[in-house]
């Protein structure tokens, strides 16, 4: 009897432990494609770039790489061109994010208004969202044509008597940065608009009705109901947009190339020129790591905000 009992245990124990191990591994098996992709597409490249940033003589050089620690970071930090690129990037990104917020919210409020009929609303939705449909290269080509000294914008300004001479929008050291910032604002606001519109449609009418019963005017309704309800969306969008805008390369490269005389130089174009024009891949890696650090700094706030929103 005892023997048979032992036998039953020994027969049953082995499959159970194997099953238990399999059960533990199943979630990892499901995750493995994602983990593999993350390692191959993110971790290995980031680690490689980080290692390059600590070396001298990488990629285009006959000399073997040598470890110089933070030498590249120090050199980059004291480079006037880098500081100019950093300042330009912060101005370009800050103004873009702010304008995106204001424009996106304004258009979303307009489209959410009950004063506009269904057909015009649908029409305006299509018109307002158009800039978002174009890729960055198309936007760059389009605006290069529009802002050409012989282009449509100058033609209209001169015809309307708002300008006497042709304005060199993208060639002027005073106007180039505002011009590319404007183009970026134009191309980016629809994403905010769509997101805010979804947020506005999710706010319960009960809140507004309660506010009206309490005697709130439209300004107070906006300030005390609409804005607080949209706050999580505003913070999330602003942070994501700031990260995306600091990475903007195609638009700048295809409109001004960072010129004239570095007045529109961004961290992205600065890094590209270091790598592919000067063949300074180690310094370019250091700049790339600095951009990553800035993005990570903002990303941490984004994740924290998301966690607080979920709690």
């Amino acid at each position: 009897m005892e023997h048979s009992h032992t036998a039953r245990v020994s027969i049953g124990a082995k499959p159970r432990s194997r099953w238990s191990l399999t059960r533990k591994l199943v979630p990892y098996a499901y995750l493995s494609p994602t983990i593999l992709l993350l390692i191959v597409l993110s971790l290995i490249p980031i680690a490689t770039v980080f290692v390059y940033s600590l070396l001298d003589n990488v990629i285009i050089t006959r000399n073997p790489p040598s470890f110089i620690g933070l030498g590249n970071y120090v050199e980059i930090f004291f480079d006037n061109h880098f500081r100019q690129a950093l300042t330009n990037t912060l101005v370009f990104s800050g103004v873009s994010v702010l304008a995106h917020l204001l424009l996106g919210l304004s258009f979303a409020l307009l489209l959410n208004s009950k004063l506009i009929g269904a057909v015009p609303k649908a029409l305006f939705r299509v018109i307002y969202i158009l800039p978002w449909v174009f890729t960055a290269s198309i936007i760059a080509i389009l605006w290069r044509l529009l802002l050409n000294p012989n282009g449509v914008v100058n033609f209209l300004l001169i015809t309307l008597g708002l300008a006497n001479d042709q304005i060199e929008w993208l060639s002027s050291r005073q106007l180039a940065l505002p011009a590319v910032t404007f183009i970026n604002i134009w191309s980016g606001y629809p994403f905010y608009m769509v997101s805010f519109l979804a947020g506005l449609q999710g706010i319960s009418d009960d809140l507004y009705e309660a506010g009206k019963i309490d005697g709130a005017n439209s300004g107070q309704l906006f300030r005390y109901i609409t804005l607080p309800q949209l706050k999580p969306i505003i913070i999330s969008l602003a942070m994501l947009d700031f990260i995306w805008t600091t990475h903007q390369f195609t638009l700048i490269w295809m409109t001004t190339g960072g010129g004239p005389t570095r007045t529109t130089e961004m961290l992205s174009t600065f890094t590209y020129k270091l790598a592919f024009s000067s063949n300074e891949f180690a310094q370019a890696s250091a700049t790339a790591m600095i951009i990553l650090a800035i993005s990570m700094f903002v990303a941490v706030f984004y994740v924290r905000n998301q966690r607080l929103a979920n709690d």
Partner: protein
Amino acid sequence: MNKKLVGILLLVVALLVSGGNLMAQDDIVLEFSQWWEPELPAGEFRALMDEFEAQNPGIKVELISGPYSATRDLIVAGAATGTMSDVVGLDGAWVNDFVKQGSLASLTQLMSDAAFDDSELAAQIQLGGATYMIPVVNFVYPVFVNLDLLNAAGIETAPSTRSEFAAAAAALTNAENNVSGWVLPLSMEQPNGIQNDVMSWVWASGGSMLANGQPNLVGNADVISAVEFIKGMYDAGVIAPGAFSLREQDKVEEFTNGRVGMMISSLAHINLIRERNPELNFAISALPAADGYEGPRGLPYASWGIGVAQNSEHQAEAWKLVAFLMSAETNSRLSSIANAFPGNVKSTPDFVQTDELFAAAFDVFLNGYLANEFTGLPVAEQLMREFNEPFQLYLDGEMELEEFLTIAQEAWLGNFE
């Protein structure tokens, strides 16, 4: 049944694999990375390779073709990882960097091993006494003149001196009709305007921006007179507006649309201009020289160059392909289909006999010499950018000539160390 099927499949796979190996053992496959094939009429370049293969049994050519910039990135990646294609298409601006890295083979050695007579080669790009690139075909940059605008301005012949050019540019400029005399592209994205549209004035008068292979901008009378000449035209308002963000394609577009009277551009653009604006009446002439200069005129050019990878296991076979492309007959055919001038002095492209404009350009080519001092310099594109930045400030009146040249020279010297 299933086992039989699996067995047959395994057998087929084994045969295919071994067959592939057998083929690989029989033929040497040369990889040839270049941006030329997409720029030539479909199938023409492959046909040349087929001819090479027929002449050299046992050697196959695998073309790896892409746009210019993608090809450069591919070659950079290949140079970094030691996987560069056996034969590579090169721009003169890249050579120095690849030679520094040791990724290009010495063609001098390969020519010597193959007992090749290099007297027919129009040019060789050398560093440290060894050849690393041979220009296969050349695209020269003469002056394009809009004849209708020129005649309307009361000028009968294309300018041949700087004074005549400045006078013609002033006469052509008509602000009311949005017409400018000359177009100068100085975009920071594509800084080759410094090479083609600025330094070309120096070379056209027999000058140089270098001394003993080192930057020589400060106090260089040739450079000073050229940049002062351009500044004079900029101040006179005869240069098309928006110069600081214009690229080479914008320049061609402005000329094609009749908004610019004169431009310095590649011969490769003749067909493009004719396609876009068949009505445009234009001519080609040599780049004007400084007043009183009688010597030979340097003619700016860009090349489709060729080189052999140091990491290639088949350098002798790779050289055979280079020699084939540089032979008088093949080079004539390639230059004919590319609308370019040959890299072999004994080659004559077909279009010289059939096209008046190309014939005129060929005369300009034969009477001058090819001049592009950026070819073979370290980080050539970066040198152009580093010159462009203070040059823009100088043109805008924000910087004095001496300061501009000093800043540019110091920046250049940093790359020559």
